[in-house]
């Protein structure tokens, strides 16, 4: 049979970001997919040479505008570990709350884009309307909608008052209640089922073999979540990752839908369990120059991120490396695309929740 090569991207209606896959087809079946990245590669890891470690956090945040809080937090936590800084407890709780809010906004954002990709524009609008309410909370508590710069080595810059924390929980619970209808559509609507169910199945064994992370792995039944390690105060919360077993596109959507209500619940637990210590210190002054190295792991909305930082006792770090979740999930995506119909390629690519600017840095 004649083989055809179809370039997918970089400018493609379903892709908000440039990614290129050379799809090699036999008739309508995809035989092979060859990825090309580098459209967003900025080379920011090399900026450690000219940006001081105290300011490098602003660069790290801008690895990606969706997980910007988690990137800033990961950098701060890693540097605190290198410099043996004891961070005030309130700051750690606030970080956890913002981190879970990032997950809610990121999943809503993705569910919208996913809905747009499978042709359900109404749902796209609903998800993004809901997401704006989360962004309002972000803007009120940090001053930013996208880039927050609220993390600093040694703590956080802004406190949230106890009354405001309670109000946030109420607001998020209302949001969760109004989201149930949207969630129900994602899980049960026949047209969505028709489009996603049984498409792009990643078995549990395959997910392990290609080292998938985050919702991608959890949708294939792997109980994998960096939050389970109990770091960053997750050991003080009741937490059990959302698992699905089907491993298809629908399962990946459902995992993210359920993680939204889970995150709302985690924020409620955090506000309940954190000491009512309004006005307690939220940061410590950090002095001196860092020496040492650290590997830091964190659960971002898209999965596990790994940072490696090496400091050599100067103002400039020797090496900064971020392995982002999409980088880890691209091999899984390529595996899924092989053997599927050309028309299913956009859905498969979208359901890994690709974040290309994270991948390429």
């Amino acid at each position, binding site marked *: 049979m004649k083989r055809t090569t179809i370039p997918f991207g970089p400018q493609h209606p379903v892709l908000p970001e440039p990614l290129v896959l050379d799809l090699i087809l036999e008739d309508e079946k995809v035989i092979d997919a060859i990825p090309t990245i580098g459209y967003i590669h900025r080379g920011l890891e090399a900026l450690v040479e000219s940006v001081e470690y105290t300011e490098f956090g602003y660069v790290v945040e801008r690895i990606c505008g969706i997980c910007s809080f988690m990137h800033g937090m990961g950098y701060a936590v890693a540097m605190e570990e290198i410099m043996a800084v004891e961070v005030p407890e309130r700051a750690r709780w606030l970080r956890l709350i913002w981190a879970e809010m990032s997950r809610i906004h990121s999943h809503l954002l993705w569910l919208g884009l996913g809905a747009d990709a499978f042709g359900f524009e109404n749902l796209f609008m609903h998800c993004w309307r809901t997401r704006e309410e989360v962004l309002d909370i972000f803007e009120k508590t940090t001053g930013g909608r996208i880039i927050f710069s609220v993390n600093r080595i040694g703590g956080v810059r802004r406190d949230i008052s106890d009354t405001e924390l309670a109000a946030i929980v109420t607001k998020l619970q209302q949001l969760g209640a109004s989201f149930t209808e949207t969630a129900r559509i994602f899980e049960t609507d026949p047209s969505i089922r028709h489009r996603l169910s049984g498409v792009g199945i990643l078995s549990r064994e395959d997910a392990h073999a290609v080292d998938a992370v985050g919702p991608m792995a959890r949708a294939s039944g792997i109980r994998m979540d960096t939050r*389970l390690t109990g770091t960053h105060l997750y050991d003080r919360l009741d937490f059990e990752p959302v698992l699905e077993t089907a491993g298809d596109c629908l399962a990946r959507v459902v995992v993210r839908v359920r993680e939204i209500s889970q995150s709302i619940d985690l924020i409620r637990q955090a506000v309940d369990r954190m000491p009512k210590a309004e006005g307690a210190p939220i940061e410590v002054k950090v002095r001196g120059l860092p020496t040492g190295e650290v590997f830091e792991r964190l659960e971002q909305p898209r999965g596990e991120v790994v940072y490696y930082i090496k400091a050599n006792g*100067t103002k400039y770090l020797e090496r900064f490396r971020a392995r982002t979740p999409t980088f880890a999930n691209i091999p899984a995506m390529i595996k899924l695309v092989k053997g599927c119909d050309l028309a299913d390629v956009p859905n498969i690519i979208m359901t890994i929740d690709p974040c290309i600017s994270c991948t390429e840095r």
Partner: protein
Amino acid sequence: MDGTAFLARVEQYHRDGWRLALINVTTVLPAASAAHGAPGAHGAHGAEAPAGEAPAGEAPAGEAAAVAALPMGGPGVFEIAWGFARDREFETIREQIEAGTTVPSISEFFGAAFLYENEIRELFGINVTGIGVDLKGQLYKTSTRVPFSHAAVKARLAALAAAPVKPS
């Protein structure tokens, strides 16, 4: 590095159910040229760049031979860390290699390694042999070729020394 012993260790991680968390490479600069010496004495970013640190400039033209011709970034040492994770555990295998040394691919055991290995080859100029999916130098395309090679890093540091960036 001892390729056989290394692959045996990787295979052990694979058999014990670990997953590949990252492969990181650090361009190790000799203390003198890096001038990342004693705290406070940040030579390379100040006026006193060591002598003989002329910018290495762009690698010669001839894009086709981009990946094949090694070492392209001059002599030096790279530190490679293969990181493996299993639930709460995280372990690394570390190797220090001279530029120009070939490194065996681990994609036989960890299929996802191909992306890291292609990236290492393009950004650091380290020749990884036997990559599962060989992208033949097409993954990235950068203005500075092999941007993390010793020559490229030294050139950037020298440029910074000549025109320091004012702290904001």
